[in-house]
């Protein structure tokens, strides 16, 4: 999962909902998608761990 990309999508949904230019079907769909993203991001924050790997660099 890419937190950055999902978060961007969430920002876009918020903007669209805020603009008031959506029709009702679209607004409900966006709202549901937004809630789903928030849940995914919340799960990520609770569970994700950093992973460090050493790479082998050759000197030229």
């Amino acid at each position, binding site marked *: 999962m890419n937190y950055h990309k999902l978060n961007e999508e969430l920002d876009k949904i918020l903007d669209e909902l805020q603009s*008031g230019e959506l029709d009702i079907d679209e607004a409900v769909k966006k709202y549901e998608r937004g*809630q789903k993203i928030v849940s995914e991001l919340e799960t990520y924050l609770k569970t*994700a761990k950093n992973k460090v790997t050493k790479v082998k*660099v050759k000197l030229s």
Partner: protein
Amino acid sequence: MLPVDKTGQVADLPILGVSDFVAVFNQTLEFVYPSVIIVGELSSFRISKNKWLYFDLKDETASVKFFGSVYALPGPLEDGLMLQVRGAPRLHPQFGFNINVQSIQPVGEGSLKRAAALLEAKLRAEGLFNPARKRVLPYPPSKIGLVASGESAAYADFIKIMNARWGGVEINLADVQVQGESAPDQIVAGIQYFNQSAQPPEVLVITRGGGGAEDLASFNTEQVTRVVAASRIPTMVAIGHEVDISLAELAADQRASTPSNAAELLVPDKITEQKRLKNVRIQMGQHLSGLVADWQANLITSAVELEHVISQYLQRYTDELSAKRNILAALNPEAILRRGYAIVRKGGVLVRTTNQIKKSELIDIKLHDGNFNARVE
């Protein structure tokens, strides 16, 4: 006293041709001094054909000649700087004794600063530090290439803060030396490794802790600064020091004051982020209820408008209908009877002319209020 033969020559000494002497001498030098490190003041510095370096290092009483390639330059130099030069002493077949340069480092705070200032002016003129070149780092990144010493406190601090603030980041560490003579080459190799990777990280973090001017010298070298500036991957350089900003930091897309600060700038804090997400949830709910309320209000307005339009139509039709009714009423034959006219029928047939009736015939006369019979006279 050395033993001397009859001709006056020293006994047991080999007699050599000039080239042989140069070869033997160089072999001996190579055996005894494969490499030497000399510190002295730079003088008679010149570059020939953009390729070759010639200079002397001197102190109060002596001066030694050096020769090398421009690739050994740490950056622009000028006479008067104190340098530490590593090289191989040798006797050139034509030009005499010199030291073949392997590496050059300015030493002493004054010289380091002066060399950095010269390099900064050169690179600034080339536009390497131009603010327009700076890219925005993805926030937060999912993959980081870290160029640091795996043993350093800087590395430990960076990882500690990263783990405390955020999760799910893949951190690839290029474990390199960040001080000493081989540090610039290693840092460059680390940055290049990530840039050439098939799946490059989203951000490169190049970091080390604080130290004296000489410890940080690698980050003021031309090669490191250029590689940072040329990186395809956006860069963050974090050197833990307070006084001067290194050239590598100037060339980076973003700089951080310490390794911990780098982690703080790279990723959000998850507790703050959780609060933000909670707010986003509420905001979305509010926006949607706002929209629903607007639509309801619109619907009510539309219903009222519709009712109004329909009642206007109804009124129009009612008016038209009543006008038609009046016309119809006026055209009703009964209405004419009321004005004194009568309808005459004979045997149920309407009598239109006197020719239709004869004397004594019975006719039916209809007035507006009733009928009666009469006989024709």
